[in-house]
């Protein structure tokens, strides 16, 4: 294992010190382990809290700030946060309008957020939740834990964050988050595995000429392992899978996201193929993100997320945002 760390067990603690030092707009509570806006909660605004295992930076801490989240709860690497820290973050951002939990659909995340929501309700805090489950690589059936949450988390946090700044109430933000999730789909592909610092070994193995199609953001296997093909062919597989699950039409928001180890030049190669595929199917990209937004440590590969926009969603996407990882219009 070759990593720029001080100790495998202190990666998260050391990184949080760095986050606090780098971003004066954020306050990091290192004992309860949550990240909030430095200015404190906005009176009368629904508080937005997300969280999950670390190793996906900038998700979620990098999206704390005006127009997006109020707080993020980082768990250990690839491990969901515990109820105590979610509860502490929920209390910290509550300002009378209730708190919305944005949760990616993994058993651990769902259970820990659920326990925290029950504890918060005992304190009289109104909490609602949106479970993000946009990954088409996993069949959604009663025989699995359901679809995984991936790139759509970024869209939900941005769009719901904008609505919350404009004064949307708790029920409205929850419904909007659900709508964004329902209109979004993702597909990931891995070229190399990644290594969790505390375990020291790669989470899986991939041959020199192999790719994992439909990989999860923790390196969980996807639909199939296949030979490395051209970016165009791989994009075809990803978009075929998305299109088969949710027929694409009209205006879309597209994110081409690096899993951590894939350079920007390759993301642009992928983006070109995505744009060509979509144009060939009569679908128009009107908004996009290309870069590192929801990573998987140093894994090489990318995820492609598509959201079918409406005029309202476009308006909220364009609304001002000021966070470490996403900022415009302000």
């Amino acid at each position, binding site marked *: 294992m070759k990593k720029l760390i001080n100790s495998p067990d202190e990666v998260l603690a050391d990184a949080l010190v760095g986050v606090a030092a780098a971003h004066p707009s954020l306050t990091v509570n290192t004992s309860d382990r949550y990240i909030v806006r430095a200015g404190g909660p906005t009176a009368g605004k629904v508080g937005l809290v997300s969280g999950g295992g670390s190793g996906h930076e900038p998700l979620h801490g990098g999206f704390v700030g005006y127009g997006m989240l109020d707080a993020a709860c980082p768990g250990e690497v690839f491990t969901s946060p515990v109820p105590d820290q979610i509860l502490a973050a929920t209390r910290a951002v509550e300002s009378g309008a209730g708190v919305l939990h944005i949760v990616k659909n993994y058993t*651990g995340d769902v259970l*820990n957020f659920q*326990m925290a929501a029950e504890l918060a309700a005992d304190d009289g805090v109104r909490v609602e939740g949106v479970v993000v489950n946009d990954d088409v690589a996993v069949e959604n059936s009663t025989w699995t834990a359901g679809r995984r949450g991936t790139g759509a988390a970024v869209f939900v946090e941005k769009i719901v964050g904008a609505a919350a700044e404009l004064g949307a109430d708790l029920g409205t933000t929850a419904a909007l988050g659900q709508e964004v999730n329902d209109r979004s789909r993702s597909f990931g592909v891995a070229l190399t595995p990644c290594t*969790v610092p*505390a*375990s020291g*070994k790669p989470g899986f193995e991939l041959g020199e000429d192999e790719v994992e199609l439909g990989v999860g953001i*923790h390196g*969980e296997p*996807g639909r199939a392992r296949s030979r490395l093909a051209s970016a165009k062919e791989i994009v075809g597989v990803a978009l075929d899978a998305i299109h088969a699950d949710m027929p694409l039409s009209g205006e879309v928001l597209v994110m081409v996201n690096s899993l951590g180890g894939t350079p920007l030049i390759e993301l642009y190669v992928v983006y070109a193929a995505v744009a060509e595929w979509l144009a060939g199917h009569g679908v128009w990209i009107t908004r996009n993100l290309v870069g590192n937004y929801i990573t998987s440590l140093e894994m090489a590969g990318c995820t492609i997320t598509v959201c079918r926009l409406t005029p309202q969603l476009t308006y909220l996407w364009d609304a001002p945002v000021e966070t470490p990882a996403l900022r415009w219009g302000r």
Partner: protein
Amino acid sequence: MDIDLARTWVQAIAAAVDKHKDHLTQLDSAIGDADHGVNMHRGFSAATTALTDYTPPTVGAVLVKTGTTLISSVGGASGPLYGSAFRAIGKALDTPTADTQQFAAALAAGLASVQQLGAAAPGDKTMIDAYAPALAAFQQQANSGSDFATAARAAADAAEDGMRATIPLQARKGRASYLGARSIGHQDPGATSTALIFRALAETVTAR
């Protein structure tokens, strides 16, 4: 079972998890996300630390404290699941000592809380596949008048059988379920840590 034994049991689990940490993580990397050993180690280390300066009034208090500490320190699905199990077992043992029948009832309450939270059934390739047969074996021994140590050994044997029986199963819950048929042929890490917990119980009470 008494207060001192309950504490020794938790310490024995911590020692077993420490010893098998890499094995648990290795099993988890095959069908999960390679953190089960690390997470369980962090949780039970925290639990033994929490018990060090604690003077519990009942057997249950030891186990409730253990469960609460697991919920606060493990994360993942294992934290809430094991944490709730220990809390439920502890809540059913509000006495300074517990006989075999009382402990059987407490173990049943623990299983019920895990199933309520995780919604898994036997055969889903989860910790339930070790826990349910262990409970059945413990109950059977308790009902036939066996002593605590005999019941605990039967439970540990049944948990290990159940653990091995997860190998041919296809996962239907948790992160392993994403693998579909590719989860077949791998032993479930959660069932494995559950078997460690029951083996630690058997060894603790047998050593007494």
